[in-house]
């Protein structure tokens, strides 16, 4: 048997569609140039020296005590944050799905907790941590009268990252618990198991793969996190900050490249385990929708401690966020609590705040529609079409998810500052707004593509086939059928991309040139200097912008969209 004829015919049919062929070629070129190539150049740079292929660079960085320390630091933090986030996430998810909540207040709290990390820049919690528990911290200094408390270092990073990432775990596990058929647990109860026994022998084993999944996702996030360790790490360096200092402080480009390779290998290995082993397992337990509602636990001895714990944690998280606008309103944090607008005035008068907001806003505004459209095109190709390079496109756009921003930033510096492969080709790109926009796109592409893929999987294949059959070519099918049907997913992708772009920092901080002022970079700078009033003022306005755009989108979808509400779900990566 030979399938050569059909392969040949499929090829002919494929090339009869020039728009699609062009799209795919452009897409492959884009992914290769801006995702694969920067990573490849890191490998090349760290292995190839004047003397040919060697491991000298690796030997050199491995001999640096602070790099070895950074590796153990990063893994230690990541491990603790992963476990803590997964457990707190499980607690929240369990309470939401299994426990009868007495008041609507608690439901509101939960919603807010899951929403806040989406709309806020990734490192505001470090700011508030310092303002609450630092030397001049309200809680430590004024409530507890501790004057020399240090929040900098291991525990600072761990707590801040846990508070930042556990809502992601909460959203992931909530979906899992919701899909457990309640009759399984009822059967165990019926056979005489106590409620605790049911939890340990039925519920927990069922969510265990999901729990592992949540752990690894957070682990990766923690390892890749740059801004929090930067602000609150003090002398406790992680891989991301070490790499940053290696290139900005020591100007050791080869060393930084090699370090980036090490960091990439760690995240990539975990990503592969997470993606191909745990994710498959944790979705396999989702046996479809639960047949009927679950009998919620009303027993006070169970509900009281659980809800109190959740409420306390939620209030703590919310307090941390609330700290930020107040930090911008007090005259001198920790000393003088008179309200003032001077920080906001300074932001605009002295620190070119308007330019910073304009630059961030404009660059993100350009990046987000491109990201949204690209991710919809990728999802369409991946879900609905058959062609050879499909696996490549899917793999590379997902790979971007495993690449820490710092690694990507170093890759872009090495890859484009001297042109492609140091030949000068495309060198003019470096240092422009275009490369920043490209970084924004690459950083948000995986999230958008994931949501697009899951939206498209729900659409019957024959709907597009029927349009094709009636005479539409691929482009027409995409524009008149596919895109209108996934309008909601497109819109949410648009806003998610915008929010992610305007709050991004890790890759951007390495690539930004003085001609652009970006809000996140400003916040980072002022926070490092200890100018918390200014940093908070910047952060407050940024949160207002992102929250406003999410609200706007939900409003838009409510009136013009087809169905579900978005904003919270997008964060489940």
């Amino acid at each position, binding site marked *: *048997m*030979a*399938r*050569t*004829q*059909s*392969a040949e*015919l*499929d090829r*002919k*049919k494929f090339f*009869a*569609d020039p728009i699609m062929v062009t799209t795919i070629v452009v897409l492959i070129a884009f992914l290769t140039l801006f995702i694969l190539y920067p990573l490849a150049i890191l490998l090349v740079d760290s292995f190839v020296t004047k003397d040919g292929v060697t491991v000298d660079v690796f030997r050199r960085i491995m001999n640096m005590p602070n790099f070895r320390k950074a590796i153990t630091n990063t893994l230690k933090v990541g491990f603790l944050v992963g476990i803590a986030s997964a457990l707190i996430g499980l607690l929240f998810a369990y309470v939401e799905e299994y426990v009868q909540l007495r008041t609507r207040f608690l439901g509101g709290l939960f919603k807010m907790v899951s929403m806040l990390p989406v709309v806020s820049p990734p490192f505001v919690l470090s700011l508030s941590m310092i303002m609450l528990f630092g030397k001049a911290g309200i809680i430590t200094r004024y409530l507890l009268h501790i004057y020399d408390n240090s929040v900098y270092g291991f525990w600072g990073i761990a707590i801040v990252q846990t508070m930042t990432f556990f809502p992601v775990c909460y959203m992931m596990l909530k979906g899992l618990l919701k899909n457990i058929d309640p009759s399984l647990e009822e059967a165990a109860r019926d056979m005489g198991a106590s409620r605790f026994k049911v939890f340990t022998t039925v519920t927990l084993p069922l969510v265990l793969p999901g729990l592992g999944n949540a752990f690894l996702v957070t682990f990766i996030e923690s390892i890749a996190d740059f801004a929090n360790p930067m602000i609150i790490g003090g002398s406790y360096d992680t891989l991301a900050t070490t790499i940053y200092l290696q290139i900005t402080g020591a100007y050791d480009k080869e060393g930084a490249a090699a370090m980036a390779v090490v960091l990439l290998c760690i995240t990539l290995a975990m990503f592969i385990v997470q993606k191909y082993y745990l994710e498959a397992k944790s979705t396999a337990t989702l046996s479809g929708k639960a047949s009927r509602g679950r009998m919620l636990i009303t027993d006070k001895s169970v509900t009281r401690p659980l809800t109190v714990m959740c409420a306390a944690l939620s209030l703590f998280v919310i307090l941390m966020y609330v700290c930020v606008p107040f930090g911008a309103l007090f005259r001198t944090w920790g000393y003088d609590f008179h309200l003032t607008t001077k920080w906001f005035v300074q932001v605009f008068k002295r620190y070119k705040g308007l330019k910073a907001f304009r630059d961030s806003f404009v660059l993100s505004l350009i990046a987000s529609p491109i990201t949204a459209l690209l991710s919809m095109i990728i999802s369409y190709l991946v879900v609905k079409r058959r062609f050879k390079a499909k696996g490549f496109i899917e793999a590379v756009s997902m790979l971007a998810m495993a690449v820490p921003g710092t690694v990507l930033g170093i890759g872009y510096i090495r890859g484009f500052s001297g042109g492609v492969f140091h030949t000068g080709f495309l060198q003019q790109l470096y240092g422009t707004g275009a490369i920043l926009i490209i970084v924004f796109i690459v950083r948000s592409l995986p999230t958008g593509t994931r949501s697009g893929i899951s939206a498209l999987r729900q659409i*019957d294949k*024959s*709907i597009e*086939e*029927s*349009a*094709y*059959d*009636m*005479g*539409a*070519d691929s482009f*027409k099918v995409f524009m*008149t*059928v596919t895109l*209108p*049907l996934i309008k909601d997913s497109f819109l949410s992708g648009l806003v998610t991309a915008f929010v992610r772009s305007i709050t991004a920092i890790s890759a951007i901080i390495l690539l930004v040139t003085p001609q652009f002022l970006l809000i996140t970079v400003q916040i980072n700078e002022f926070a490092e200097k200890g100018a918390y009033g200014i940093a908070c003022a910047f952060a407050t306005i940024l949160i207002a912008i992102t929250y406003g755009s999410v609200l706007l989108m939900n409003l838009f979808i409510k009136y013009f969209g*087809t169905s579900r509400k978005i904003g919270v779900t997008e964060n489940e990566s």
Partner: protein
Amino acid sequence: MAKEKKGVRLEHVSKIYEDPKTKKEFYAVHDTSLSIAPGSFVTLLGPSGCGKTTTLRMIAGFESPDEGEIYLGDEAINALTPNKRDTAMVFQSYALLPHYNIYDNVAYGLKLRKLDRKTIKEKVTGILKLVGLEGMESRMTNQLSGGQQQRVALARALVLEPGVLLFDEPLSNLDAKLRVTMRTEIRRIQQEAGITAIYVTHDQSEAMAISDQIIIMEKGVVAQIGTPQEIYYHPKSEFVADFIGEANFLKGKLTAKDGTRGTVDISGNAVPVEGVDRFALQDDCTLVLRPESARLSESGQLPCKVILSCFMGSYQNYHVMVGDNLVKITDFNPKNKKIYEVGDDAFVAFDADSVHVL
């Protein structure tokens, strides 16, 4: 109504698939040749997995054949994409565009052909009248019943005046009663539009009711092509006989032959039959006896014992044993006849020309 009725020809067409589990390749359709006359209504009939839908999708262009060539009219269309083929398909799930109303669904293909607004309106209005949906242009597809959605799907395909209309099990999502109404409708509309139609189904009564020709497929191969009558009364194999209607199979030997007439020995009983010219004396052969062609009586060709007797209203249902063979008999209008009870001895009687010899 159609610009030009077109015939469809398949020449030695095969399609190979790979079993996703065992990674083994197999023929979904194997060496199929058929010729469908312009303006006729042809049904591809067979059990699931027989390759009928694959054949249809190859004609539509969604699948590419691995061997052979497909012709639409005189044109070889193997390399054409579905949007360039003069075919229009009615999908099993209807596949209406959910973000458009009825009018826009039907007008979609016309707009792609860049017709002017007035012509589009005329055509859409005309076709909606034909399928009985006039006045409902602005309804959204989710406001329609299953039957109405079916009509929109049909109108949407018809309005393009395709050379061939393709149906992929279009009635399988409707309830039994509506299925019967809709199949008559489809036949009426096809006749009125004078269009070539290829119709895939696994429901044999549907196939009998609407087709000029039936193509029976089994495991990727064409088992028989013929009119409903030919297929019913002269099946070429046990598979065809069994798939179309109910059949009793009686194994025996040809003991006498005179031209087309002959005698077959069934467990020691001589049964006169017709149509044995293909056989030689002493050949093994199988008699196909339709349950409604046989009756129970006091005398007849085969002695038997009744093991089931069941009143069904319009007929009496018998199961009888002829030797070791189970024979089913449906005796219509039992009111004025003798009813045999379980345990009774009787004879199976039938006319010589109502058995078919295999």
